[in-house]
């Protein structure tokens, strides 16, 4: 594993640890309902401060169950992760194409298929690649 990959893995591990520690240390144990959303807690706080307050508008669409809601949240995360993965995959492919075209150019040979890939990489405007 390169030093770069090691640092990236370490970053991910620290994030995972930060997420797991509150659960592992039982930091929600003092609560009746541990690990509820902060927005739900704020709603409770509002009712404490102003017992007469009634929300004057309700969501146009509400997921009918916790399962549907988690499905929609998963969809949101999947959409985001998909676009990010597409971006980095495309970049990597273009870089490799440009590198290959560069190698072909150095050979000063015919290589038409690779040359095509290279022109695509070149239009990406990556002089560093």
């Amino acid at each position, binding site marked *: 594993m390169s030093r770069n990959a090691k640092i990236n893995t370490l*970053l991910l591990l620290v994030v995972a640890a930060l*997420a797991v520690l509150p659960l592992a240390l039982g930091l929600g144990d003092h609560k009746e309902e541990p690990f509820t959303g902060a927005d739900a*807690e704020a709603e409770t706080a509002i009712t404490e*401060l102003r017992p007469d307050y009634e929300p004057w508008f309700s969501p146009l669409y509400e997921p009918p169950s916790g399962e549907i809601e988690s499905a929609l949240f998963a969809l949101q995360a999947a959409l985001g992760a998909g676009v990010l993965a597409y971006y980095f995959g495309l970049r990597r492919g273009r870089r490799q194409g440009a590198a290959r075209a560069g190698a072909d150019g150095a050979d000063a040979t015919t290589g038409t298929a690779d040359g095509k890939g290279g022109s695509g990489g070149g239009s990406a405007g*990556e002089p560093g690649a």
Partner: protein
Amino acid sequence: MHIAEGYLPPVHAAAWGVASAPFVVHGVRALTREVRSNPESTLLLGAAGAFTFVLSALKLPSVTGSCSHPTGTGLGAILFRPPIMAVLGTITLLFQALLLAHGGLTTLGANVFSMAIVGPWAGYGAYVLLRRFGAPLMVAVFFGAFVADLSTYCVTSVQLALAFPDPGSGIPGALAKFGGIFAVTQIPLAVSEGLLTVLVMRLLTQSSKGDLIRLGVLAGRTSERREEATAR
């Protein structure tokens, strides 16, 4: 975690909407300009928006025994400057308000103000300041994302405290209460967001050096950068 639907009195909801609107309109114009003058940045714009989408869908447990989620707005603010992030953040908030009953349409103005305006500007400010004082890129990126995340929820606390002052101790008392719920919960999540933003920025420095130089994140070809700065 955003202010839930109907949980801001109508006057407050309207006021935050009015306060947010010019930033979003300005952001839309900045976004169109960016896409028109640099069509190749569309992909990276999509990636920055996607980052916000992922991070604000991740509800994570925190030290307070409750859950909240990061915002992911720091990355886009550093790459494309805060006005563009006002648009991308608003799209994310709209998605959550319409489909997930998370946040809301009446509280959209207030939530846009905290997550899509103050967060990106505060994070961008921290980033620029640290860079000016010679901090390494990744240190500045970490604190930029950290500040963007945390300031968002500080603003949320202030918004709720203004709307619901404590009967005994007034606005400061309510601020302490909402701050305890939102801001304290957010601290470890802001650290996570900082680390994830550093991770993505590290990947970008490998994959998209050209874009980062053009956007002024990485040094190089200074003359071109100056041209762009004057064009803005």
